[in-house]
């Protein structure tokens, strides 16, 4: 397997003896969206900043195209930090032109303006944009050198739902252009939508890794079939799966939705209020770590 970027036994211990990253190893194949998922303080940002070359690891190895990252690394990577300010009093266009001159090879500013929808505020001061506008500009700066690999650290934190969705569309368009994306997030819906592969991190360590589907099937193979009941639980003797009957709702935990539906139809149960709830990454996180993402 040829990895574009690989980390081996990466560790970061800060001067106050806090171990932020404790022996993390994974490989990122080219052309995928690779996610680091975990709560605040899990070590995601420290891990990604070591990969970016911003922070020096205490120990461990980082390989880019099989070798230690050299001078070419910064020419071929794009980075969007979790929070950034930009130089004072420069307009969006001027910031793009400034960064354009930092790279040997860079995309035309007008192309980036179009791709990231910056046209409506191109002449506004960069530090006076709204949250969503600023994130689109920072993404444009991360793409300005047409990088092979793009690092995005919690790119939609603090954005309203509409801005988040718009940003997700941008990331999906980057994926279709064959770029490799490394993304950190604590949003489950974002990880499920965007990531082809995930590592789940907690307290500086990897708890598990794989595609979202693989992880869910591995740890949470069950689905929940829900029905509204009006105080009277129907006769469900002999049904497969685990039944949980509340006052208003009946929940059947099953490994096969088709089989459960067939059994319900056999018994002539009214299916008009039927809902099927698939386990989410939130459920996965609780299962794997024993605590919620936002504890």
């Amino acid at each position, binding site marked *: 397997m040829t990895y574009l970027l690989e980390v081996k036994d990466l560790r970061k211990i800060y001067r106050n003896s806090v171990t932020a990253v404790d022996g993390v190893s994974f490989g990122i194949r080219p052309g995928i969206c690779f996610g680091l998922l975990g709560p605040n303080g899990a070590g995601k940002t420290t891990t990604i900043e070591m990969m970016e070359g*911003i922070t020096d690891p205490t120990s461990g190895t980082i390989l880019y195209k099989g070798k230690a990252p050299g001078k070419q690394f910064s020419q071929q990577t794009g980075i969007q*930090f979790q929070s*950034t*300010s930009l130089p004072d009093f420069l307009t969006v266009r001027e910031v793009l032109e400034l960064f354009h001159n930092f790279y040997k090879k860079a995309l035309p500013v007008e192309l980036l303006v179009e791709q990231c929808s910056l046209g409506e505020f191109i002449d506004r001061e960069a530090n006076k944009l709204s949250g969503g506008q600023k994130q689109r500009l920072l993404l444009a700066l991360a793409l300005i050198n047409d990088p092979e690999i793009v690092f995005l650290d919690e790119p939609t934190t603090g954005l309203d739902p509409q801005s988040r969705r718009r940003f997700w569309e941008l990331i999906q368009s980057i994926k279709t252009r064959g770029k490799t994306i490394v993304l950190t997030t604590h949003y489950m819906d974002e990880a499920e939508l965007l990531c082809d592969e995930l590592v789940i991190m907690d307290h500086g360590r990897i708890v598990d890794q794989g595609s979202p589907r693989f992880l869910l099937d591995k740890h949470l193979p069950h689905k929940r079939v829900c029905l509204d009941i009006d105080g009277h639980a129907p006769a469900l003797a002999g049904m497969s799966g685990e039944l949980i009957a509340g006052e208003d709702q009946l929940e059947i935990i099953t490994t096969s939705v088709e089989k459960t539906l067939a059994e319900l139809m056999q018994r002539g149960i009214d299916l008009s209020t039927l809902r099927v709830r698939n386990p989410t990454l939130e459920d996965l996180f609780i299962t794997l770590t024993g605590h919620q993402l936002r504890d």
Partner: protein
Amino acid sequence: MKEFIALFIARNKEYYRDRAAIGWAFLFPLLVIVACALAFSNPDTSVFRVGVHGDFAADTAVGDFLEQPYIKVLRYDSLERGLERTRHHQLDILLSSEGDRYWVNSQSTASSAVEKLFLNDTEGFQREEISGRKVRYVDWVIPGVLGMNLMFGALFGVGYVIVRYRHNGVLKRFHATPITALHFLSAQLVSRLIIVVVVNGLIFVGCLLFLDLIVLGSYLNLLLITILGALSMITLGLLIASRTANEELAGGMLNIATWPMLLMSDVWFTLDEAPLWMQQAANFMPLTHVVKALRAVMIEGASLTDVSHHLVWLALMTALCLGIASLLFRWHKR
């Protein structure tokens, strides 16, 4: 009323719990008092300033005259330099052993008074008369003010901005690109150099026009001193900003750098009456060399050679600060 009292109490708590600010509020005036007391600790009791070119034996009439307590003797290897100072009332009388001559300024009352005392004690000297405009305090102080302005523009203009950009993450964003610390620092240096030289130049022109300043030396020399002075202080600013994590700390460090220079670098008053150790300490400060060089060129007509030792010192300081700043520079706080 209770709203006022509540806010008043809260504000007082904010103030006395800020240990750094309260320390500075008491320490700083104390330092100013101590510095001024030291600067003026050896008061000059002389009444007349007598320039001497050449040598006069101690047991002669002239030698006796020069030892009077009301005489301050200033020696000159160059007769021309002595004449220049006499012309501008910085000397009350100039004596030369070459041809036993003396010069007085016809426009100076102190000159005529000391001449009477001199003629009372000596004889056989040939009288020469020169005239010229008095160097006013404003002529003396403006080079100091120009130097001070250069210092503030250089130190705060570059140091503070870099620290702020480090604190708010702008430098970290630059670090994530291929640019190097050399690219970034040299751009800051050249940009600030042009700004301070142009601004100071405009102030200088304004002073020339509105204050009718004495400028005896070359304008090109003044430009060269300004450029070297700006470089030395910009690089000092780069050094201070090379690792500082936040604006409060940067402000404190910049104040520690600037206030001693304001008091000891001959800006508002000379350190001629200060202890020797204080004068020697002042020679380690870049502003001292800028002010002394500017003043020498403006009111004494000094040449480039005359101020070369100041320029060499400024160049060395620039190289040292730039070298250390480059080694210490950090893109982001740890």
